[in-house]
């Protein structure tokens, strides 16, 4: 893991409003070096935040900095030190990969010869070494995503903003993309801010998350630390599961049950003893009792439940739009 260093992104009461709609609402953000996942539903303010961090739009109020540059006044300096990998198509389909990446470098101010050298290195790095002279028109989705990443890292930026990097990729291409981002962080010691709606992807690459909801920051920090809010015991029972669930609820415990498997929130000192007592009292046979390692998906659902939203999976929210 990359050690925590000074924040690379810092915002204070950052607000961006479009007329009466507030896209970012007094956002206090602190993103440290390393890999950070940016989560949020459509309309949560992710795109606005990215544009703000790139220094492309004027904020309504508040302040912020990226790599020490003021987002209000030093947009070009920020964009020179950041590599941005857009979510949508951003390549000229008639160009070949190598020249597209070289041009991306030239647009940053790289000498054409050096940009070409660097384009070779970057395409090799993202696994397109053998495909670099092919026209982008004939690239698969995975190859296009890899080319976009190569364009983003051509000038060896300190921070890479990857917007949905695994969008539309098959399993193998997705794994390779995530591995590449991970290598960039661990081997290259670069920072990645990865916007995604795929919890598994974020968990695979990132050690921290920033969760936005309706323009507000609802969770921020190390995934491991955040998971502590959703620590549970998983109990597998045989018989009288419903009675046992009622017994646990009567004791004021938070229980989620699906068939013979129930998860009990670990917010008591001696929870296993209490579970066994209830089981004994209700005649349920406990076959297995262990702590449950929450996934980011569980964490997300827990946070959303605390915000008062009834969601069954992150797909409900992240892919479908913000709940009302």
């Amino acid at each position, binding site marked *: 893991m990359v050690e925590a260093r000074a924040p690379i992104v810092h915002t204070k009461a950052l607000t961006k409003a479009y007329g009466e709609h507030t896209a970012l609402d007094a956002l206090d953000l602190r993103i440290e070096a390393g890999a950070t996942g940016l989560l949020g539903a459509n309309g949560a303010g992710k*795109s606005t935040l*990215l*544009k703000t961090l*790139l220094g*492309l739009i004027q904020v309504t109020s508040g302040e912020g900095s990226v790599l020490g540059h003021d987002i209000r006044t030093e*947009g*070009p*300096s920020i*964009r*020179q030190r*950041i590599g*941005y990998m*857009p*979510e*949508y*198509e*951003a*390549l*000229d*389909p*008639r*160009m*070949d990969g190598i*020249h597209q990446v*070289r*041009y*991306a470098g*030239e*647009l*940053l*101010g*790289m*000498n*054409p010869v*050096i940009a070409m050298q*660097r384009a070779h*290195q970057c395409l090799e*790095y993202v*696994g397109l*070494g053998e495909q670099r002279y092919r026209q982008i028109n004939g690239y698969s989705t995975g190859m296009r995503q890899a080319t976009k990443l190569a*364009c983003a890292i051509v*000038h*060896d930026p300190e921070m890479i903003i990857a*917007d949905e990097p695994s969008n539309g990729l098959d399993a193998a291409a997705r794994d390779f993309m995530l*591995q*590449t981002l991970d*290598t*960039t962080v661990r*081997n*290259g010691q*670069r920072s990645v801010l990865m916007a995604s709606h795929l919890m598994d992807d974020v968990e695979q690459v990132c050690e921290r998350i920033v969760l936005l909801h309706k323009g507000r920051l609802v969770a921020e920090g190390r995934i491991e630390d955040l998971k502590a809010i959703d620590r549970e015991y998983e109990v597998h029972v045989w018989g009288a599961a419903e009675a046992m669930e009622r017994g646990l609820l009567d004791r004021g415990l938070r229980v989620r049950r699906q068939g013979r498997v129930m998860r009990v929130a670990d917010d008591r000192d001696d929870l296993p003893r209490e579970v066994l007592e209830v089981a004994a009292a209700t005649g349920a046979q406990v076959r297995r009792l262990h702590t449950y390692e929450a996934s980011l998906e569980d964490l997300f659902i827990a946070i959303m439940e605390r915000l008062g939203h009834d969601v069954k999976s992150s797909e409900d929210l992240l892919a479908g739009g913000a709940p009302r």
Partner: protein
Amino acid sequence: MSETPVEDHEVRFDEASPVTGASRIEAAYTAEDHGQASVAKSGSTGQVFTQTYLPWTGTLNPRWARNWAVYRHHMLGLVRSGHRPWPILIRVYLVLVLIGSVGDIFPVLLGSLFGEGLGQVFMVSRDSLYAHVLGFFPRNVLYYPVVTALIVGTMISEDRLNGTSALYFSRPITRFDYVAMKYLAAASILFILCVFTLLVYYTVEVLAMGRGWSWIVDTFPLLLGAVAAGMLLVVTYTSLGLAMSSVSTNGFFPAIGLLALILGSKSVAFLVALIFEQDALYLLSPYDALANVGQALVGTESNYELPWTWSLVSVVVMNVLSLYLLANRVASMEVTRE
């Protein structure tokens, strides 16, 4: 798999050695390393691709280099691969127009060989200078409007279509620089075809006909007038074309729209003047407005009853409106989504 190298063995060739493919290969291998036998060794199996992040410690050049990159990308794409991929048909058409544009040079060269009388009508004069820039047929029917439509049509619209605007705006390229460099590239191509060939034409006459200083002093103001008229044409056509390109996501609409604007308004204004004897619509026709101003600048007899100053105002208004539309549309181009 074993990684033990295959034993080296010495290969000898003499007169009796058969000349086969295998012996040629062995001869090629053994030709290296001062006669030392060099044979293939078994390789190790395992991971072929090792992913290592390579840092880069170079320095990025300032704004001018980025702008030059945009300009260069569009200009070099006409003649070399690896830059903006211009369709082959456009390139061929540009070559044909270039040949057509310097068409008035050949009579001058012939005149220098066989006597002035032969190419008299093509020699440098008010009318021929004006015709080189603003002659209606073929230059302002087949050459300049069509070239503008072809080069400008996709200049901005393709960035909307392909999302490549994100490639520009997520880098330290300002929208002004982006549009200015695209404008400059389109205008440069038109400049070469229209104004540069005019200068070549004039220079060829000076050199081929052996014109003296007095002739140059007499005709140079005319040349300047024609250059100014040509520059107005280049700027106006480019502004109109880029404005059209900025409102679309494909190249067809801007191209057809520009041709319809230039040739359609000219046709309508001509018909209205013919039938109703009203010249006012010529003010709305980019070509006629430019022609009226151009005739005044070069000093040829005017075909229009409208004052040339009104046409100049019309040209200025057309440019301002086009640039306003262009600026607005480019300002709305997105980075995160198009």
